[in-house]
């Protein structure tokens, strides 16, 4: 079946350093979505990318969707302690809306 792999599983950074998480799918995706889950919280939608090669920015966060629509990345510039949490990518199936979640990358930021 369709799989979405996400790396790294954990990342510890010093506040102010950059952070990137990568997502790879075994099949072509109709879209990719990114979610953030704070410790003890629930996943919160960040963004959806649909087009091949698409790049979107949200303040210090940059999201990319690969040309083949099989991979994606999330880059955070100059991390802050408020960025702490687990970031999930989720690949979308076009017909059912089913999302296949990656394993998540848990980000810790040392002040």
């Amino acid at each position, binding site marked *: 079946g369709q799989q979405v792999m996400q790396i790294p599983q954990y990342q510890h950074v010093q506040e102010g350093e950059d952070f990137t998480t990568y997502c790879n799918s075994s099949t072509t995706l109709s879209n990719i*979505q990114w979610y953030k889950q704070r410790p003890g919280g629930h996943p919160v939608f960040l963004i959806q990318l649909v087009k091949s090669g698409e790049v979107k920015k949200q303040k210090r966060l940059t999201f990319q969707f690969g040309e083949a629509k099989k991979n994606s990345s999330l880059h955070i510039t100059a991390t802050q302690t408020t960025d702490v949490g*687990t970031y*999930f990518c989720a690949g979308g199936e076009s017909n059912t*809306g*089913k*999302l*296949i*979640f990656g*394993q*998540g990358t848990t980000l810790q930021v040392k002040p």
Partner: protein
Amino acid sequence: DTAVSQTPKYLVTQMGNDKSIKCEQNLGHDTMYWYKQDSKKFLKIMFSYNNKELIINETVPNRFSPKSPDKAHLNLHINSLELGDSAVYFCASSKPPGLAQYFGPGTRLTVL
């Protein structure tokens, strides 16, 4: 004003019991989902309903039975609970399938 709400927030029960989790959304969305998040934070889709019709039914034990009385509600009933059912269960909703999903606060189920 909560968009997606779930009850209860915590559920502690004995093996073999039957329990239900309720979910309600006031966003006017057409599609609702149940996810299971295990201790390693892995999120797995279990079921999805679109306008009260089952559209996603993953390979979960048939002890799990969803029910959608209307578009705004999706409940999950679990029979004969097992230790391995311990997890956080999230309800979510989206306008049509495929768009952004809005998650509820989760129900932490502990089976003793």
